[in-house]
């Protein structure tokens, strides 16, 4: 039974920690732009290395 009290106390502590982390992440701007990164990876802009590519 005593495990229960420890666990309840700990859960509240962990929840508080996550709340603080969430508020922090919003305030430093981590959610300012949650669209661009998903589009940016679609563009690669690479060219095969001239040395490796077969010379036609």
């Amino acid at each position: 039974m005593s495990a229960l009290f420890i666990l309840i106390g700990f859960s509240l502590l962990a929840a508080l920690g996550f709340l603080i982390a969430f508020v922090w992440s919003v305030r430093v701007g981590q959610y300012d732009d949650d669209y661009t990164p998903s589009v940016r990876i679609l563009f690669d802009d690479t060219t095969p290395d001239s040395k490796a590519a077969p010379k036609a």
Partner: protein
Amino acid sequence: MRNVLNTGAAPVELDEFQYDNKIVRDFAIASVVFGLIGMLVGLLAAFQLAFPQLNFDLPFTTFGRIRPLHTNAVIFAFVGNGFFAAMYYSAPRVLKAPMWSPLLSKFHFWGWQLIILGAAITLPMGITTSKEYAELEWPFDIAIAVVWVAALVNLVMTMLNRRVEHIYAAVWFYVASFVAVAMLHVVNSVALPVSFFKSYSWYAGVQDALVQWWYGHNAVAFFLTTPYLGMMYYFLPKAANRPIYSYRLSIVHFWALIFLYIWAGPHHLLYNALPDWAQTLGTVFSIMLLAPSWGGMINGLFTLRGAWDKVREDIVLKFMVVAITAYGMATFEGPMLSLKNVNAISHFTDWTVAHVHVGALGWNGFLLFGILYWLLPRIYGRSLYSNKLANFHFWIGTLGILFYAVPMYWAGWIQSAMWKEFTQEGLLKYPNFLETVTQLAPLYFLRGVGGTLYIIGFIVMIYNLLMTALNGKLIATETAKAPALSAITHNDPQEHWHRRIFERRPVFLTIMALVAVAIGGLIELVPTFMVDSNVPTIASVQPYTPLELQGRDIYVREGCYVCHSQMVRPFRDEIERYGEYSKAGEFVYDRPFQWGSKRTGPDLHRIGGKYPDSWHYNHMDDPASMSPGSIMPKYPWLLEDELDTTTTAAKIRAMQTLGVPYDEGFDQVANKDLQKQAEKITESLKQSGIKTKSDKEIIALIAYLQRLGTDIKAGQGVAVK
């Protein structure tokens, strides 16, 4: 100290750098080659259950040694190398930086392949710790840790040298995978070496079981799930050429997933001799896991909204859609199996086997196939050799999964129902365990057919990819251009070096990921180790005799735990069938624990004293002679091979170091004690008309089996404080 965009008018200069495709190709080849071997070994194991002759009466090919080879090969060689191939392709492109150290990449590649080679040699030799998916002995454990950390360092350094401000979520999943597996592997592998190829687990009994399944479950989480989610987040948008459905969801579900997953381990030990509070925690967190797991599935499937016409045409997307669907099914089933009332039916049966194979064949296999069909043509500069063959692979593979899973679900339900069925007189309807096994033979055969179909598809893929490669030419490096990170962001030139290293986001992210995964482990492991009342001691439980200890190591070597549990759950049918249910205090000298996870044969925890010594002797020589129709392999070499007693003293000393209360100096006289007990068993065999010598391995194994679960009878199971 927020980084802000540099809005200066001067055009920024572009760095030029190369992506290495060779390492990607190498990992892909390793994945496919080892994958084929691992699946063929799995096929052999599958058919062994239908046709026991396929064990070939050889030590190296028995099911108990083959099954760990199969699981290790498909998890660490097939899925692992597949992840590395995908990571070495996607991470540099996401970060706009080549891998930090090509040397570390090479070290990672060759180190990993050498470890796999070592596993392929040592596991069939019976060199094993018997901890599932962590069977490799301690020298390999150290090698794995070194190679793993090298790869992590390479990835984090690449992140520090990136040319984009924001790190795309796929890489978050990669980093979390590395960090979590490093933690799990190191903690679970702590052991005391006795010789170069033998060690004893640092933990005993209940603690060992908890640490092992904390590891075991999260090997699924952080080796089979998070890396592949990362891969999904990169390759699915690329293949569909559209952004992920919700990038915000990917971030939220990342943190939720890695935080919740780590707690779920105890659901592998429901109704076992684990403290109730730990079992409940495991169940509760497993139920909660449904949310982030389905968050990932929804994010994947919704990415294709409005593009389902593409799925009809594009073979890559077809594979990915089945993969994500399989992921969704497996992650729905997982929480259901974690409910105690469902687990009471499913645990120890083939239901679990069906469950993991939906994940492995569907999610891991199909996602990787989709990625390989996308990737190989790109790095070989041509289109896929044959779309027709790829389509054939898709359909035969999907059929293979169905033919695998359905018979195994069926087998699980049938067997569990038979175990639990009572007659109207209140007796077990099927008191002979074997009846519940022979019933499954046709289903085991069908499962083998499913596996065969899947492997045929796999071989067709290898041919298709090989022809693609042969008709193209490897683009060993690709050149890319991007402005340096310092050119697009503003950094304080005055900042100290420790700021640069420890407070930049990649390192912070890595540390936070470690914190998130460590919390659950700490809360479950620490109290189980520190609070004595979790493992009540039983006065009559004594350490093993030297002969029994040697016999136990033979039990471990032969992989008996693969098919036999040592855990009688507190159910009416199990107590009726096996005897008194297992208590936590009975396992305090078990290093490693041998609770098992599957009952292809009956539970053995109360086997001690159930049969005469001669029964065991004949049974190990030819199981069918004692149990007609048995599918257990024969172990004739145990009757021939001499027991190696040179290790006895070292083993006793190791056990003393670990806290087993043998008398001071017992190691010196241990072999005398061993000899005496061996003579006694030889004598009892002689009276049953069996002539053998006391120095054979079988004698030690009989000693161990006859001791199993008997201590509690001496003290009537009274718990003392």
